[in-house]
């Protein structure tokens, strides 16, 4: 990650922000014995979210989806992947990033309406794997648990946001994807 090589005025305010990048000497000292967990970072409406990579089965381009009649608001439809039929959800609705789900299934579907960088993350779930539509997939980041900041009251969340992390100047929101599907 190139971020760590740039000048970050925030780093001078020690104690308030703790940069998450591993190579940074300021954090290494305090968090040496911890092992970092790898997360996949992705974008939803310009906000950067992250989910532990162990929960992601694979990442695919957005295929044609079939809508399910009378389904819940956040269910986009089903997709077929190597013979398997999986549901695909739009988490933006729950995260209040959008009022309604993307209109990408059904005969009036406009696949052009979503960014070409959109992808579907296939998430492992004991109740059956599911797909999540995201605007863009970023990269894999490594975070030490102690560098994760709990959410202050007033910063929305409910129980599906697990905390905040900092990637240089960028804010990363850790997501509990299973709760975000409910």
């Amino acid at each position, binding site marked *: 990650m190139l971020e760590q090589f740039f000048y970050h005025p925030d780093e001078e305010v020690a104690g308030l922000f703790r940069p998450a990048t591993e190579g940074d000497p300021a954090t290494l000292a305090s968090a040496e014995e911890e092992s970092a967990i790898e997360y996949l970072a992705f974008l939803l409406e310009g906000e950067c979210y992250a989910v532990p990579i162990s929960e992601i089965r694979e990442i695919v381009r957005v295929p*044609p989806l079939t809508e399910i*009649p009378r389904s819940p608001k956040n269910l986009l439809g089903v997709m077929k992947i190597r013979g398997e039929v999986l549901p695909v959800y739009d988490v933006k609705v729950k995260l209040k990033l959008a009022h309604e789900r993307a209109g990408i299934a059904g*005969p*009036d579907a406009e696949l052009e309406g979503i960014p070409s960088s959109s992808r579907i993350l296939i998430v492992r*779930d004991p109740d059956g794997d599911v797909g999540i539509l995201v605007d863009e997939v970023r990269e894999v980041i490594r975070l030490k648990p102690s560098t994760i900041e709990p959410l202050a009251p007033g910063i929305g969340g409910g129980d599906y946001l697990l905390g905040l992390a900092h990637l240089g100047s960028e804010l990363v929101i850790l997501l509990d994807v299973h709760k975000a599907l409910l």
Partner: protein
Amino acid sequence: MTGSSKGLSDFVAEAAEILDSLNRDLAILDRSVGRRLQPDLLNGIFRSAHSLKGLASMFGEQRIAQLAHGMEDLLDRLRLGRLEMTDEVVDALIESLDTFQVVLAETGRGDRSEQASRRTEAACERLADFVDTAPLEHEDALDLLELDTQVRDVLTEYEEHRLRQNLREGMEVWKVRAVFDLSDFDRGLARLNANLKTIGEVISTLPSADPGDGTGIAFDIIFASRVSQRKLRSTLSNMPASFQPLFQARTSAPSSDQRQGPAPPAAAAELRLAFPKPVPEEPPRPAVPLDADSVRRALTQTVRVDIGRLDSLMDAVGELLLIKANVARLADEARQPGKPSPGKLWGHQLYRESQLLERKLDDLQKGILEVRMVPLGQILDKLAGAVRRIARESEKEVDFTMRGGEVEVDKLIVEALSDPLMHLVRNAVDHGIESVEERQRRGKRPRALVSVSATQRGNQVVIDVSDDGRGLDDERIRQVAVRTGIVGSAQAAQLSSRELHSLIFLPGFSTANRVSELSGRGVGLDVVKTNISRLSGMIDIHSEAGKGATFTITLPETLAIVRALVVSVSGRVYAVPLNAVSEIASITEKDVRTVERREVIALRGKTIPLARLARLFQHPEKPLSRQFLLVVGLAHQRLALAVDDLLGQQDVVVKPLRGRLRHTSGIAGATDLGDRKPVLVLDPGAIIEEVVNPERRPELV
């Protein structure tokens, strides 16, 4: 206790196979109580118990091992004629089998319940009760043989052991006496032994106690074998030998045998029933409810496959590989740099390969489906046993016949059919069939008849469960229907017999209090119907009051492939299982009427409810001059489903929706029509329920 989970599943699969074979054998045994027993049958059961015991011990499954041991002991006594085969004994054996099923299912899940352990103990005790009445302690199997004491003295320990072993295994023992010339007796004897060894075991060759006329040298060969006397005679036909049986059967007591005349000398071939010591009169232990059937389903996700079927699959794959090679070659040709673009000939070749590919893939698919098929006979056997048991319990006389055991159906369907069929058969005996006195009063045969028959009709399987009992009482059904508010009294008076009969499948009826209200049918038929619908099947009833009733179940042969009608609604494509559609019609808007604001349509003189699929699924509706109707359902509950267009008919593989999607109302699964998008397959039964019984709103996903 048990090893890795793979080891556990192997154990469960092996044990389940043994239980299957036990099931078959016990069904035959059940039918042959009171008749002559084939020793092979008892031996087969003994061997199953023995294998099960060994397998269970190896895996540390003490409960199963113990019960299997108990079974072995009981069977031993039966084989040796020390215990008489009665209905009670067979019941005890069947109870043990059911207990095995329950315990095995538990083990497969990794559970271990108190209830199952207690049940095992109860079953062991029940077996032990019979065993105790037929002690074997001081008995030596060899005493059963007619052997001179001289001969016995001369036998080595090993030979004695072999003799006992053969007797235990139910072999017949013969004494073959051969006389040879002094000059070549060694060759002659060798030849004789060689011949005998092909059909049994030579236990001992001894100089004969009876030297004969002194010109040659005589031998007595003690020989154990399973073959018939005739076979032995033909094997010895060119030899200077004679034979006689050594196994002395006991004399029998039941008069039926005496009617057949004096017991034939080669009695070793049959096990006579010994005169039993008095069996304790106490009633069998209270039976733990038999949930073995529902438990069985949890047991195996395995099927036994005929190797021939696997071979044809391999052949199909082989041909596919050839096609692949050809396609690769054609592709390569097209890619050659400098070559002109591929011409028509190339196009033809490619087309030909694609045709072959389609055919071969079809074969492969069919072949794989076939592998999943198992014969219905298994369930039919169990039904036979159940009928006999229930008839005994309710003191009725019932004959049971079954046909079509060889009809094959997808394994999942067979497992799922077990419960509903049991239910129907139990209903028939418990409630449909009258007592012997009542039957005689009505001039019917005292012995009632329950029959189950399965036939294949195209790609459907039809199973009929009939009885010649009371049949349905229309009047009573009318009364109950009115009383429980299912129909108004005016409406009830108008319902035809057939329509009344179809009411008994409604849940309302199952809550009707006493069985006698329905005079003939018990509770829970709505459960049976639901189970059958889940298999994409249908159930119907025909009955004549006083004469009997027949339930007819129609099922698709396989759940996996379904013939479907492809339709479009508001621009969306759906597949409708064709076996649910009874007719197709086309209508215009002016044909639609309303009753109490619900849309209906008149079809061939009958008015049935109409549902617009677009409206039901909350899709934007298109105004169309002409719409198509699919009529689904049968008899009492029919529905006309309006769709925009019919796109064709196709065999599709249905994948049920799993996980979070499994409660999707109105949708049975998804399939592939070749497009990358999955196509949803409708669940006509659920849609009918939703529209025709709107009090029961569907749960949204």
